[in-house]
């Protein structure tokens, strides 16, 4: 049996569809009501959780594999996993965004950067040899520049329409994001055949 944790919401929907295409029976998952743990006849056991919790479950070996966005992996301090497959779904990117004048403005003080992804923001500005102040916001990060709490934001950009609607624009792309299949290193060793089979089947769906 493979134990799987999936990030709730959009990733869950897309991954389930891919698993179905790969030949797994997902009916029990589609028909779930409020259960948090589902076991299918194919020998898959699913739990569903928030992205960072998927990583936590995997770290503790509660699940063998997890489906999670690269954004979560980049911002999480846990690093000891295998990243077996890029599912090429949920594609978007990390970017610095601000009002257009940000690019040419001469800052006298430290720039203030609002982000939900504080580690990503920190690493990015470090790589630029820039010292900035990072302010954590949990959502609607675009508010940062709008209410003048920050000079710019570091956030996920998919279509850019929220930015545009608020007069903000992408200043620089930081890195690409998509959904990844990750595995706990020890559990991988004990369930190698089943996990590799699942990876191969999913890989074919990705390539189609």
């Amino acid at each position, binding site marked *: 049996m493979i134990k799987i944790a999936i990030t709730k919401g959009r990733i869950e929907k897309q991954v389930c569809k891919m698993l179905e295409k790969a030949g797994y029976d997902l009916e029990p998952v589609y028909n779930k009501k409020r259960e948090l743990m589902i076991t299918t006849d194919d020998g898959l056991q699913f739990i569903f959780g928030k992205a960072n919790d998927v990583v*936590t479950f995997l*770290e*503790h*070996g509660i699940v063998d594999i997890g489906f999670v966005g690269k954004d979560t992996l980049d911002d999480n*301090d*846990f690093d*000891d*996993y*295998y*990243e*077996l*497959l*890029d599912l090429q779904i949920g594609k978007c990117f990390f970017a610095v965004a601000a009002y257009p004048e940000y690019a040419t403005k001469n800052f006298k003080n430290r720039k203030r950067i609002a982000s939900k992804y504080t580690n990503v923001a920190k690493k990015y500005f470090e790589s630029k040899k820039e010292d900035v102040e990072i302010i954590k916001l949990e959502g609607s990060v675009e508010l940062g520049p709008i209410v003048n709490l920050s000079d710019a934001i570091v956030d996920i950009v998919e279509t850019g329409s929220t930015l545009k609607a608020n007069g903000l624009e992408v200043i620089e792309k930081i890195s690409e994001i998509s959904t990844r299949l990750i*595995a*706990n*290193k*020890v*559990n991988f*060793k*004990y369930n*190698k055949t089943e996990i*590799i089979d699942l*990876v191969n089947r999913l*890989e074919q769906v990705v390539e189609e």
Partner: protein
Amino acid sequence: MEFYKYLIPEESIDVRIDNVATLRKIEGKLRETFTKNNYNEVLMPSFDYVELYTQIGCDIPSSNMFRFVDSKGKNVALRYDFTIPLARLYATKYHDTTSRFCYFGKVYRKEKVHKGRSSELFQAGVELINEPGVRGEQEILAMLQETVSNIPLNDILIEFGSAAFLDRLFEITDDDARLQEILKYRSVSQLKEFIKEHDFDEKFSRLLLKLPSAIGGTKMLDEICELVDDKILLDTLIDLKCLIINLEGTYNYQFDLGMVPEIDYYTGLMIKGYTKNAAKPIITGGRYDKLLPKFDADVSAVGFCCHLNYVLEALAMEENND
């Protein structure tokens, strides 16, 4: 509020009475095994200079250490590791002799809170210094075997890798950082991209593609050998095979040719031990000929370490499941 009367710091481990007896029993058996084979127990200091860990090139971030400033204004850390201080001990006191050390004790590593991780880790291990080549490895493997038989877990799986194999692979591909990163995460998608970007011949590409799942017995190893044209690369695999298949006794083991050294001082054989109920390896080790030269002692070393708190956790899980 007198919080200190009922709270302990987040960094502390829970005080347990029920598993101390188990811990001491395993520790006792290991001590008997180690000392019987002439491994001298050393009682390592609890404090060391932060620089010992940061400057020796092992990439240990000082933010992970419990640090304070000593009376001379120097930065001191709580013991973070045993192998590095032992290398210093050898280099300063036992230079040029073949030395066998064993150790038991805690290391202290700062972890983020609320992640369910422990900052106090109980380790037991052996180091064989200045016994180069196959002889050193054979001795350590014999010790490993005795150690495993003294750990009362049912399903211990030992895995062997080769840092020499990887080093040669990185030489051939003329790229260590990227391929090493790809293999560390076993990212099949990125590996395919990497191959696409390079002009490798078909056979070598096939070899690379096999590596993320190159885990198995001698049959798997032979299959990989078939794909290797480079003489030096092939020799690293043959060395590994000869070393392991000559092991006496029963041993539940496999090879993992995609195993990437976690610390870059490993040079040859790499060892990992797993059990189903622990989310991390319970044994780690290998040949690390690059460490002692950093202390100006040009000698080889090989050893392994048991992570006894993971062993205890796994034992508790096994009991619960029964």
